């Protein structure tokens, strides 16, 4: 779990990991390889899934086609996904297979963007503020989904401003400020540490 205020560098961290932003310095390793010089598609094919904050659904494509774009061959050591399995996880999507992405609600789009990334059968997944702009009911549903993904054996890196949501799903917490990690510890420790929360997270 990456936590931090607006502009702290959470999204930039995630974009660097997937290769959309080139880091100015430093190394990034994933699946035993240095990846900071690779193209995004190469990093994705190593098994890293990325779910952007703005969702970036292909609005011209319907649900099935959006999933097709994300499809990659299955890999060892990672859960395998098919559209049918994803529709069990996201029953709403299964009822609107032919609907263009542009005519879906924000919550539905958020489900679709996660499902689309899972079609690549990643071994780890980056979720950038998945609770942002969603109704409280949907946020709870999202939390359940993330817990389900963890049970499948998927490694999840989440960025969040919503501490309540973070407490529901995360095991470990890292606090980012000005692009630096200022705190790391278990989520439970952070929840108990008022001083740290006051210093880095309160607005």
């Amino acid at each position, binding site marked *: 779990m990456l936590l931090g205020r607006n502009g702290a560098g959470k999204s930039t961290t995630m974009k660097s990991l997937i290769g959309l932003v080139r880091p100015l310095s430093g190394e990034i390793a994933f699946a035993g390889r240095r990846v900071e010089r690779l193209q*995004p*598609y190469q990093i994705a094919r190593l098994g890293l899934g990325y779910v*952007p904050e703005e969702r970036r659904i*292909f609005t*011209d494509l319907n649900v099935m086609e959006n999933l*097709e*774009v994300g499809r990659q061959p299955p890999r060892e050591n990672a859960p395998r996904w098919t559209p049918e399995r994803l529709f069990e996880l996201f029953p709403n999507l299964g009822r609107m297979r032919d609907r263009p992405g542009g005519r879906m609600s924000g919550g539905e789009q958020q489900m679709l963007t996660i499902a*689309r990334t899972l079609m690549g059968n990643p071994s780890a997944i980056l979720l950038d503020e998945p609770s942002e702009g969603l109704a409280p009911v949907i946020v709870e549903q999202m939390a359940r989904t993330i817990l389900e993904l963890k049970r499948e054996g998927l490694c999840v890196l989440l960025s969040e401003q919503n501490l309540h949501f973070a407490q529901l799903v995360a095991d470990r917490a890292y606090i980012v400020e000005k692009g630096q990690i200022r705190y790391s510890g278990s989520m439970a420790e952070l929840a108990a540490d008022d001083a740290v929360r006051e210093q880095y997270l309160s607005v």
Partner: protein
Amino acid sequence: MTASAILIQFLNGLASASSLFMVAAGLSLIFGVTRIVNFAHGSLYMLGLYLSYSLFELLGGGPLGFWGGVIAAALIVAVFGALVEVLLLRRIYHAPELLQLLATFALGLIVKDVALWVWGPEDLLGPRAPGLAGAVEIAGRRFPEYDLFLIAIGPLVLGALWLLLTRTRWGTLVRAATEDREMAGALGVNQRWLFTGVFALGSLLAGLGGALQLPREPAQLFLDLSVISDAFVVVVVGGLGSIGGAFLAALLIAEIKSFCIGLGDVTLFGAVFSFSKLTLVVEFIVMAVVLVLRPWGLLGRAPAVARSSGAVEPPLVLPSPKLRLAGLAMLAALVLLPAVFSGYTLILMIDIMIFALFSVSLFFIMGPGGMHSFGHAAYFGLGAYGAGLLALKGGVPMELALALGPLCAAIGALAFGWFCVRLSGVYLAMLTLAFSQIAWSIVFQWDAFTGGSNGLVGIWPAAWLASKEAYYYLALSGCGLGVFALWRILYSPFGYALRAGRDSPLRADAIGIDVRTLQWAGFTLAGLAAGLAGALYAFSKGSISPETLSVPRSVDGLVMVLLGGIQSLTGPVWGAIVFTWLQDVVAREIDYWRAVLGAIILLLVLAFPGGLAGALGRLATRLSGGKAAPGAAT
């Protein structure tokens, strides 16, 4: 027109629409995915036509020669397109989009000269299609069988493309990349091969469109530019990236053209009105109307706001004292020049100064204004014709004509600009192109007033300016003042507001800047300056032709600005110097000057993606130990 004549014209239109659709669909696909406006697309069409001509002979004629030749020609063009993508375009996907345009334009120049070298300057008319050489009787008139075949092939290609794009994984990826290629990449889609594939497919369509015209039109060297402008119009009218829109627009434009030819000369209100002459311009009128009513084309949609906004333009800093000193030194050198050189050097220098002003005026709206004009020659030409006509037909003294000519251009820019500033990006560029084409065709066809294709002759300066030295000083003062005024304006509140409007129209709006009116004023100012360049040009040459406001002249301006670097103050001047000088030297010394020019442009684009001035600036920064102003701001 009788009912049967109407039917035949309708069928003629359908037959012409097919090839037009194929070229436009290829252009649209390529633009949609790679965001490259492929200026060489008309060259691919031309190549397809020439290749099918040669392959017909090579394969021994007959049905195999014809049909095999057509298919082989299209495939060869597809392979050529793929090679171009891999060897050239891959290196410049991250360059500014206008530089990519420049590169494809240079490629077109090379293809044209290669065609000239291989096939010669003569028109080559192909054979009739074996099996479809006859004609059928429709409504009492004979109609070629081959045209019926063409009518059928358009919808067939549309259907095949639709199936490819909606029923295959490749097509789904293409559509996804068209919408958001960065996200497609983050999902593991390898864009490289997608781009190569799309470029090959687009080239295939262009090559096929050309090859299928073999029995209908001779292979000619000017086809590349005429086809690309038709294809641009179709793509823009239909909506960028929309294949269905391209089909609809191709039908619409081909039909309108066909009926204009069919109507011929019609007497309206006692005056003879020639509809067939209208064909030169009617598509541009259609495009202008469509763009004003539906700014994103018939089936197009407003472009999504760019996700990864391009590189932020560095601000224009005030020229350093050193640079000002260098400028003054250069001015002094120019003043002293006639003492050393005479004759041809002076003529060349006058040309260079005139084009420097033209180039800076285009830079003014393109760089700081953010309005990419593809039709800036219209204002150059209006200035030239305004001054020339006033002097020749109006009996106005030369000095006054020189002053009033630019005003004509400014009035033209005021009228056209009102429409143009309502659009942005490629659409604005296309509308400026349409207006320049309209202005060109009026000048080209109004024999009685403008002299038509012969132009105007005998536009001489007043007696006291007749010597080359005197005219040199006139050009130096006119162009010098014009360039300086434009530069000065960029550092006035008006200039700052113009740049604010370019960088963030919304925020500029929110702090009380009327962006549209501002851009309109900027557009008009640039027109005025281009008009001054045109008027000076007219009196320096003594004669002008419609070429002064043709598309190639607009492209010359673009090349100068882009060579110099679009966000650099002195860049357009350097671009004008290098381009005018190169054109002069290369065109005089070498038969295949276009290819050489194209190769030089390609090399420059590959070596200096930031333009010449950007490269010089970086060099200066390195030489002075990194303390000088950033390169792009010199």
